[in-house]
């Protein structure tokens, strides 16, 4: 076995030192009826690198990859070009094979990266502080709702119908037994502003409301000025939580902080991570400084060492489960450190100038494609303003259209029917995402294929 360094001679010598007759003696506490005599049946024995690689390459080959086909799928995960040096950085063994930085004197690399990451996330979202990351956007959103309840001591959370339905599902699952009340509506399929309606959200706010959760751009790609909603929340003593699933949008759009958000959560996958069939991704979490002691997750802070040099440590850990046990702010232990590194490295390679350019490019390309697809007979563009994702009304059920497009080799977006199978009013909707990776040839292929399928 290539990963096991002990030889039989080592094993015998070590057993002699221990004073054990054989290896079985070390498992003496296991009840006899639970001891297995030999390798578990029904599983193969060890295999060479070559054999494992052959089997997995075969499996991987059955999937249609985003880079080999015209690709327009979004809804919470976006295909962006990740610079080659980002992957090189996260494959440095000193980052890849380190543990959580519990011994800060020999973990300054990870800690400084987290400090830089927190600063980048806070600035991007327009907030004062950010944590060292969470599992993904959906779990970060749920943690934000709990945080709002701790701060306001109120039970009710109002979730906009424009929030990714999987995120809302996660929230509903995790609040089933916590006493939180979640009010979530059904999306509208309205021309001009699909998804949600801020005025009706404002009307729902009452004295029991701890927070309103709104996504911007919303799932349908629609973007809105959240300032009136923030004002209404604050007037009622509630908090505004803003969800951002396409973080590149903040290179060109007003930040949630500028619009009055109290907590911003998001999915950071767009920078650094790649598509990865859904994970591992990166939960972003930022808030106002006055709420930092109610914040979940790991935090990295600046300090000095015994000789006065600047250094970094994990801090405010009295909020966490290993100290607080059943009184902890969250049961979460792990963050998403390596993906935070990828995010931070990608963003530092872009810099302010590159991020603004990337965001402007995404937006302009999406505007171009939206106009082209909106001219396909039978297709209507629903959005007024949007960033890099928009919703089409196909005038017929979209799920089979997506399948037929895939048969023609075009991954043409996500049907609303896949996300809301039960909602009749949404079945004709198709959400299309456009990033810098889509070429003019991809646009042509999509338009031609949609033309044919719709004909």
């Amino acid at each position, binding site marked *: 076995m290539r990963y096991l360094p002990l030889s039989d001679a080592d094993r015998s010598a070590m057993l002699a030192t221990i004073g054990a007759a054989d290896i079985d003696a070390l498992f003496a506490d296991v009840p006899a009826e639970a001891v297995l005599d030999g390798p578990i049946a029904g599983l193969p024995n060890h295999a060479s690198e070559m054999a494992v690689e052959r089997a997995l390459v075969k499996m991987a080959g059955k999937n249609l990859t985003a880079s080999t086909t015209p690709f327009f799928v979004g809804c919470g995960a976006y295909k962006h070009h990740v610079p080659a040096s980002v992957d090189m950085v996260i494959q440095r063994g000193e980052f890849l094979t380190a543990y959580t930085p519990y011994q800060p004197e020999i973990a300054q690399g990870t800690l400084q990266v987290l400090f830089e990451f927190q600063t980048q996330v806070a600035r991007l979202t327009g907030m004062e502080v950010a944590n060292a990351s969470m599992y993904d956007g959906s779990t970060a959103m749920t943690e934000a709702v709990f945080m709002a309840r701790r701060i306001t001591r109120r039970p009710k959370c109002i979730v906009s119908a424009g929030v990714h339905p999987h995120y809302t599902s996660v929230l509903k699952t995790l609040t089933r037994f916590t006493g939180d009340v979640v009010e979530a509506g059904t999306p509208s399929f309205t021309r001009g502003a699909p998804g949600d309606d801020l005025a009706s959200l404002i009307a729902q706010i009452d004295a029991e409301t701890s927070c309103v959760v709104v996504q911007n751009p919303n799932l349908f790609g629609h*973007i809105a000025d959240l300032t009136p909603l923030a004002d209404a929340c604050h007037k009622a003593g509630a908090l505004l939580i803003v969800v951002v699933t396409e973080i590149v949008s903040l290179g060109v759009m007003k930040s949630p902080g500028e619009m009055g958000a109290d907590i911003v959560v998001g999915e950071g996958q767009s920078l650094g991570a790649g598509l990865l069939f859904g994970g591992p991704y990166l939960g972003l979490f930022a808030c106002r400084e006055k709420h930092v002691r109610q914040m979940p997750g790991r935090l990295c802070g600046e300090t000095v060492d015994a000789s006065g040099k600047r250094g970094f440590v994990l801090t405010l850990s009295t909020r966490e489960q290993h100290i607080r046990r059943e009184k902890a702010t969250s049961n979460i232990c792990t963050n998403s450190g390596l993906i935070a590194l990828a995010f931070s490295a990608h963003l530092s390679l872009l810099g302010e100038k590159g991020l603004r350019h990337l965001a402007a490019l995404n937006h302009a390309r999406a*505007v171009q494609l939206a106009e082209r697809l909106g001219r396909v007979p039978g297709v209507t563009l629903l959005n007024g303003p949007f960033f890099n994702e928009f919703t089409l009304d196909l005038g017929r059920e979209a799920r089979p259209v997506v399948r037929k497009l895939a048969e023609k080799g075009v991954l043409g977006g996500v049907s609303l029917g896949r996300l809301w199978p039960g909602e009749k009013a949404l079945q004709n909707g198709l959400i299309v995402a456009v990033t810098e990776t889509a070429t003019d040839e991809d646009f042509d292929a999509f338009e031609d294929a949609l033309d044919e399928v719709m004909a």
Partner: protein
Amino acid sequence: MAMNDVGRPTRLVAGTGAVAETFTGNRALMLEEPLLFERGSLDTSGVDLPPVPPVPDRLGGLARDGVIGLPGFSEPEAVRHYTRLSRQNYAIDLGIFPLGSCTMKHNPRLNEKMARLPGFADIHPLQPQSTVQGALELIDVLADWLMKLTGMPAVAMSPKAGAHGELCGMLAIRAALDARGDERRVVLVPESAHGTNPATAAFCGFTVENIPANARGRVDLDALLARLGPDVAAVMITNPNTCGLFEPDLKTIADAVHAAGGYVYCDGANFNAIVGRVRPGDLGVDAMHINLHKTFSTPHGGGGPGSGPVVLSAALAPFAPIPFVRKTANGLELVEEDTAATHAADSFGRMVAFHGQMGMFVRALAYMMSHGADGLRQVAEDAVLNANYVLASLKDLYTAPFADSGPCMHEALFSDDFLDGTGLTTLDLAKALIDEGFHPMTMYFPLVVHGAMLVEPTETESKANLDQLIGAMRHVATQMLADPDAWRAAPHFAPRRRLDETLAARRPVLGYKDEAA
């Protein structure tokens, strides 16, 4: 005057005996690195992009103005920044990382290569299912390995880490109780449990009660049996436990809990000790999470991402979260809805936006296929052998509170009682080990012994590496007992001396502030 073996004398600061400060603050290969915000520039970018087509924007008046404050690097600057930072980290790739309860084993590079195959890395979670049959197959095959290795009939794949897996298991238990209209709400947790266990139980609406340990470091069977009753929903047990000991009464406990109408949650953080030799399903477990980033070698990445699939008994399987993969006549299907139409109406719902940690699944499966059933059994045996070798080699010098009660499993537990009277603690010893070139063991956990030191070598360390660690631990302890005052300020040779954690918490500085701001 200090003299090198060859060459010139080292220059000393007059009168102090200390080596002079350098102009740069660097010391040869030990390189200081400023923050991105001190080095980068708002006008620099390391990414070339095509020009933006000139079209009128559709941002509805929401364009961002003002400076965001995100400095950039050219590619050479970025590569050097992160490479220099990386060198201030300890890592498994550099040496033994004996962090108890964390299973820091070698991370095979084949796994990294496989996870980067475009067929796994470059696919979207919402692509049509017909275009991702290979990805669903990988999840299905990994699930089959996990079920066979644990002897359990079902597995939920989507939890993103160990604590998230615990949450999945406890939500399944809560959903099962609710489904039968049972209002029992007490969860029993041993004193030695990971802090996540009580945190998770409380999150699911349960009341936590502690169960004491006996003198042998195991759950006090009599106390536990006496507490069982119609109000007890579940028992959460770690096996092997956090003292590194096998719980020999687990089957007896499980039978009694089941007879009393409750469920058994097993924290599987320490599965590495028994993989291939013992199946938790044979011990009466109803739910157990498996940290793919421990037992199955997916890299820890400086604090995640993890991955925590949960195996479930037949009693809990119907309550498993969506989504999950199911075999159908037309291939593999990803069930995304918890409705009667999908035969998943009892599911407690969704835990994550998509399908779980695919990148970790690929790595874990590559690891399992590489080892096979025979190799995984050898993994457990060598992990346990290595830990017992450390225990046997140190117990005459270090206090080993449970060594008299027989062998340990995959980790050896010591306390700092042997340092009594020196004024030195576990912390001082750990910091001294840093100077010897090791990552210290887990400190102050579990809470059931004083100044706990939990040493988990894992199976991927050679005897020579263990002998060096043992030698260093003996040397440090012996010197500490002989001359305590010399050992209060380690580490001396790390990139930083001891860091002021009190200052960090009292006046939190959680981000960089520009001088001008």
